[in-house]
């Protein structure tokens, strides 16, 4: 069996796309997305990136909305192990490659680590311009006026942008980018991150990247604050932490319980390691 499922030529093409993406931070590089043993819409893009960059020494962590134990995360992790034999971990600090769906881990990432995000919709302009040719022209001309007008409209009507996840960011002061459906809470983590962050959209066939130490700013007016979700008054029922991104669970009797969304962070807190 081939190491990491993909043939070498496929890996070559995807790696080239990744290199180009790193060279142009935030720019969507098209790539020939292969047939994968999971369906489109379930993380094939992230998976193709992971399988193209993985080597024998890598240690893999896979999470789905913060949880190592969710069905999708388990399936993907099992698949990667079955085609590579690599070590796996739930410890954010010990992983060399972290594939994630819609969340960035709570613990700070370090140099040498790589975060691979699964992308449902790579095109940040899709809600303001439907025509793909015009979208390309806008990106080429750094013409993001429509995104700004959308922000203006929401601010005029509601006081702030209505966008909660997939909040548009400007990468390296050049390209507007869709950061995937991560919450606003995670947006500040993108800025000047020590790790390499890669984005793979398998269905839409695009790869983009944020190299380490890149400037990433959310789209906002000079005189307005970028508001993020706060949990200062919410306590995790499992480990007792306050203020990290929480899952809100409704119990059968109608009461609400909060749990840390990042399960490995919660584990460490419980063990007293953090």
């Amino acid at each position, binding site marked *: 069996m081939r190491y990491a499922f993909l043939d070498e030529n496929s890996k070559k093409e995807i790696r080239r796309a990744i290199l180009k993406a790193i060279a142009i931070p935030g720019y969507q590089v098209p790539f020939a997305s292969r047939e994968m043993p999971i369906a489109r819409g379930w993380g094939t893009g992230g998976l193709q990136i992971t399988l193209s960059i993985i080597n024998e020494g890598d240690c893999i962590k896979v999470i789905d909305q913060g949880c190592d134990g969710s069905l999708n995360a388990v399936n993907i992790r099992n698949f990667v192990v079955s085609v590579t034999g690599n070590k796996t971990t739930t410890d954010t600090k010990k992983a060399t490659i972290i594939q994630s769906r819609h969340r960035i881990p709570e613990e700070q990432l370090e140099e040498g680590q790589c975060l691979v995000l699964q992308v449902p919709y790579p095109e940040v302009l899709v809600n303001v311009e439907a025509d793909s040719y015009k979208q390309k022209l806008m990106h080429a001309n750094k013409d993001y006026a429509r995104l*700004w007008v959308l922000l203006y409209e929401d*601010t005029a009507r509601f006081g702030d942008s209505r966008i909660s996840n997939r909040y548009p960011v400007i990468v390296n002061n050049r390209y507007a980018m869709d950061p995937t459906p991560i919450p606003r809470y995670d947006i500040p983590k993108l800025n000047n991150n020590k790790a390499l962050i890669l984005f793979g959209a398998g269905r839409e066939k695009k790869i983009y990247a944020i190299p380490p130490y890149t400037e990433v700013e959310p789209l906002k007016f000079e005189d307005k604050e970028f508001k993020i979700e706060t949990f200062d008054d919410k306590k995790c029922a499992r480990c007792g932490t306050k203020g990290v991104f929480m899952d809100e669970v409704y119990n059968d009797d109608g009461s609400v319980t909060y749990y840390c969304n990042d399960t490995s962070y919660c584990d460490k807190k419980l063990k007293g390691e953090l």
Partner: protein
Amino acid sequence: MILEVKNLTKVYGEFCDKCLESTGPEFESSVCPYCSSVVAVNNINIRVNKGEVVGIVGESGSGKSTLLQLIYQDQKADQGVVYIDGFKDDLGNYKNILEADPNELSYLRTKLMSMIYQNPRLGLNYQFSAGGNIAEKIIMSGIRNYAEIRKRVLYFLEKTEIPKERVDDYPDRFSGGQQQRIQISKALASNPKLLLLDEPTTGLDLSVQAKILDLIKKLQKEMGFAMIIVSHDLGVIKHLTNICIVMKNGQIVEKGLTDQILEDPQHPYTQLLVSSAL
């Protein structure tokens, strides 16, 4: 000098070497007899100076609207050079705006010139509110401060006498005359040096037409931009312009002060036009 147009030409079709010399008012035709191309704009030269308000009048097919579109670059010219005040290279020489790259074109269309179309659908984005449309122009001129943007949006709405309370309404909720006024606000929001108007009031009710023309006249006096207005209505030209250009079959047949064109037309075609006023 605000705008200088040299040898501007637009031909639909093959464009053979006989096209330009075989069409025009003396032939009473814009169609080349050799290759059947349509010579819409035939080697036009125009100069607009500061403070001038130029009217271009002519009948359908004269090329007047196409001329404006070539300057604003909604259509690509086949030949010619256009210079505009404020668009120079590093050495201080004027650059041909027809060769501007998309970034430069964006700058040209925001800071230097704006266009107002006969149909507001061409000038407005109906997915944004009235305020949003005006904000777009302001944002494109570089402002990223919300309070400042909002203030200017309301200022320009007020200038065109649209009620401030309607700033967040969508354009399709306004009357035709109001939509036209929103278009005017939008065009002026980035303080352009040159305003191009393509039949801005054709099709509107007479009372609305009068109000809008008065408004344009007032704004031009206040803000001091140069204007080129295309119209087939001599009344509009008379009301607003001080210089008048008459076009026929893609060429200029006469150019002069507006009152001179109307009272002492020299060219046979101009005389025909003037005598056709009701």
